[in-house]
């Protein structure tokens, strides 16, 4: 019975200090639980879900950069005709091999990436430029941002990287 005595003592001290009224008023009107819903709604739809979307787009972008690195690494080592072939290793083989991997699967790239390969001679060297366009879909489609890229609409990004052609003779083959 000692806890009952402690409870009564706490209540009396609370009444004496004036805090008892405050406690009763919150519990009777239910203000805390009424604010809980709108607060969570705002927090989720305007902070948490956009943050998840932005993190997802960042990861997808890193994954796309790694794909362009792989394509460029291949393009600077093979003849020009093979690199420009739409069904060759640069434009189709490597993206097909990339999509089922963990990096490719984790990225939410919707459509097939579109790749262009260019050759630019300069100062005795030949630069190979691989340009790939990606359509990254948001992980969570938030209806309150219908046309905002990466949150309510696909994020279209083009990644271009250059490197020197390893064998200059490949530019003419």
């Amino acid at each position, binding site marked *: 019975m000692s806890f009952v005595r402690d409870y009564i003592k706490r209540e009396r001290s609370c009444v004496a200090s004036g805090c008892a009224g405050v406690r009763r008023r919150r519990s009777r009107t239910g203000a805390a639980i009424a604010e809980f819903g709108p*607060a969570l709604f705002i927090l989720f739809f305007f902070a948490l879900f956009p943050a998840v979307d932005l993190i997802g787009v960042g990861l997808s972008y890193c994954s796309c950069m790694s794909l362009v690195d792989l394509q460029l690494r291949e393009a600077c080592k093979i003849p020009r005709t093979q690199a420009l072939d739409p069904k060759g290793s640069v434009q189709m083989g490597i993206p097909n091999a990339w999509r089922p991997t963990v990096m490719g699967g984790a990225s939410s790239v919707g459509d097939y990436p579109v790749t262009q390969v260019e050759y630019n001679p300069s*100062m005795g060297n030949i630069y190979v430029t691989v340009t790939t366009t990606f359509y990254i879909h948001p992980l969570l489609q938030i209806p309150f941002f219908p046309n905002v890229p990466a949150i309510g609409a696909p994020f279209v990004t083009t990644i271009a990287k250059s490197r020197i052609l390893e064998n200059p003779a490949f530019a003419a083959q």
Partner: protein
Amino acid sequence: MIETMTAFLILIPVGLAAFNLFVLVSTTQINEQLAETASRAAATKGDQQGALNAAQDAVDHVATSNVIQSAALEQVNFDPVAGFVNVTTTMVVKLPVPLPYFSEANCRANSIQPIVSTPAPR
């Protein structure tokens, strides 16, 4: 509502700082690749001046933007005795969300490539 606003006050600066970090890491990687391309271009030349011109040409190919303010060649060391060329590049990066006392970053990258313009000793 007060708790939500307080959470926003904490979350928004953390998100902006994370975005700054992402841009900084990304541009640092671009600078690393630029140094590698410049050293690879310099390695195809036969002397110091040719290597310098080729590396400068590679740096001139970098497209500047609001984030990448400038890219420059800091050092080219063409060493035919050792058989290596050493190139250092710098890049001035303007952070998209400027912070007090930290609105710009100066990235430096170094790359070493073997000289491929001369036949290897037998």
